[in-house]
């Protein structure tokens, strides 16, 4: 299904007891794009997602999804979250604790939808064995996969992910980064991901916007906004072995745990660059890509 272009120009004033927060953002999300929203805590990242999702009724402005209008305050149009077909994965997953994994997924099935999609999704996402478990019985990573699968069932036109990997350890995070990229590639799903993890930004983003005090402070491609500061080494690709990449650097062959990368595996003997970041190594075909 072709994804629509999302255009938003929104403002929201949130008054707390001690402070006032003003969100003012104009942005366009290209069809099939993976847009990362980053910024310090309290900069408005989650609020922006909530506005796009339709969970902030007090927001003013316009949001268009393709030719349909989700919101136009001047015409008093507000499409409720139920009718936007937006998938939202919350930071704390928000799985229904009274339902098993299968029931959580079944609940998301639109009226008249085929239950086959649930079985398929559970197989693809490796959830079949967990089908009869309740959310509190799952690990953080498992809950995250269920939450993602649940958000995908209604085939959303926009997927919003609110720091979905922040509560996970490094290994689980890198695994789920791959999982997210796979989902994005397979469905060509327009996705907005909120994160403040620079590695995640470089791994996942097509484009990044940085927020500060509720406004866009920077926008661009990830490596321009977040240049890699860590050491980079050139080598020759020698293939994968036991989930680790082998790279010949000079006379030596090194084996490195690789985070996922955007492109297909290099050819044997092809020149590659490895960036040794704080949380592991990742591979590039060209230096500074």
């Amino acid at each position, binding site marked *: 299904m072709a994804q629509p272009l999302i255009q938003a120009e929104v403002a929201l004033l949130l008054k707390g007891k001690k402070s006032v927060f003003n969100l003012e953002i104009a942005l366009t999300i290209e069809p099939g794009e993976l847009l990362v929203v980053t910024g310090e805590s309290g900069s408005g990242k989650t609020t922006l997602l909530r506005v796009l999702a339709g*969970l902030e009724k007090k927001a003013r402005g316009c949001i268009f999804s393709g030719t349909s209008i989700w919101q136009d305050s001047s015409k008093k149009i507000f499409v*409720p*979250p*139920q009718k936007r077909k937006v998938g*939202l994965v919350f930071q704390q997953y*928000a*799985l*229904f604790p009274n339902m098993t994994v299968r029931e959580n997924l079944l*609940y998301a099935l639109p009226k008249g939808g085929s239950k086959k999609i649930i079985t398929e999704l559970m197989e693809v996402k490796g959830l079949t064995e967990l089908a009869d478990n309740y959310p*509190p019985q799952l690990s953080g990573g498992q809950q995250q996969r269920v939450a993602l699968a649940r958000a995908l069932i209604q085939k959303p036109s926009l997927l919003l992910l609110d720091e979905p990997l922040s509560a996970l350890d490094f290994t689980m995070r890198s695994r789920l980064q791959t999982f997210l990229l796979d989902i994005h590639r397979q469905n060509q799903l327009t996705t907005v991901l909120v994160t403040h993890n620079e590695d995640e930004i470089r791994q996942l983003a097509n484009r990044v916007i940085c927020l500060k005090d509720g406004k866009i402070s920077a926008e661009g491609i990830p490596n321009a906004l977040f240049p890699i500061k860590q050491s980079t080494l050139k080598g020759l690709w020698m293939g994968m072995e036991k989930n680790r990449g082998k790279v010949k650097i000079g006379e030596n062959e090194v084996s490195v745990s690789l985070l996922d990368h955007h492109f297909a595996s290099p050819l044997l003997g092809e020149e590659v660059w490895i960036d040794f970041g704080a949380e592991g190594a990742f591979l590039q075909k060209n230096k500074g890509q």
Partner: protein
Amino acid sequence: MNEPFWQTLLLTLQLATYTTLLLFLLGFPLAYWLAHTRSRWRRWIESLVSLPLVLPPTVIGFYLLLAFSPGNPFGRWLHEVFGIQFVFSFAGLVVGSLVYSLPFMVQPLQAGLEGLPSQLVEASYMLGKSRWQTLTRVILPNIRPSLWSGAILTFAHTVGEFGVVLMIGGNIPGQTRVASIAIFEEVESLHYAQAHQYAAILVVLSFLLLLAFYSLNQQHRQWRNR
């Protein structure tokens, strides 16, 4: 144990059942509003809801009696327009019990709703589910212990009420004579054996209700920690 005895007990249980069911329907929206509102009226409404906890039941009964009496314009209006007479009638007992037991239903429900992460409700909306579907499939099942608390405490409290029902309902066998009033009357008439029968049944019933309440609470704790 004769027929009036069972009639009185049945009336007591009927009163408690009607009160519990009606109070759930009335109390849930009120508890939901209290749990989510930022209105400055909240503290006023909360204080009003809690008033029956501290007021002598006779005070509530007294004012309800005045309000509903045919000598009062409101009571007369109810009688003339709707043909309803609350004073010395079973319907009046139900109204009195609704007021008297209000905090026992509203407070547990409010606590349950306040403890429910708002993201669960929002997640349901994001999955395209209506407010009704969200209420029945997400909200109510996840505040089950509060529902049980509200229902059991309201039921038990209504079974045990005395002052309000005496003031508003009097002591008409088969209509307004409930167990707590029957005990009082039997003692006054020195019929200790009959008083014992009522009292023992109330003790056992109340104990069983509280036992059910704590068992359900324990079960829920185990379910949550599974």
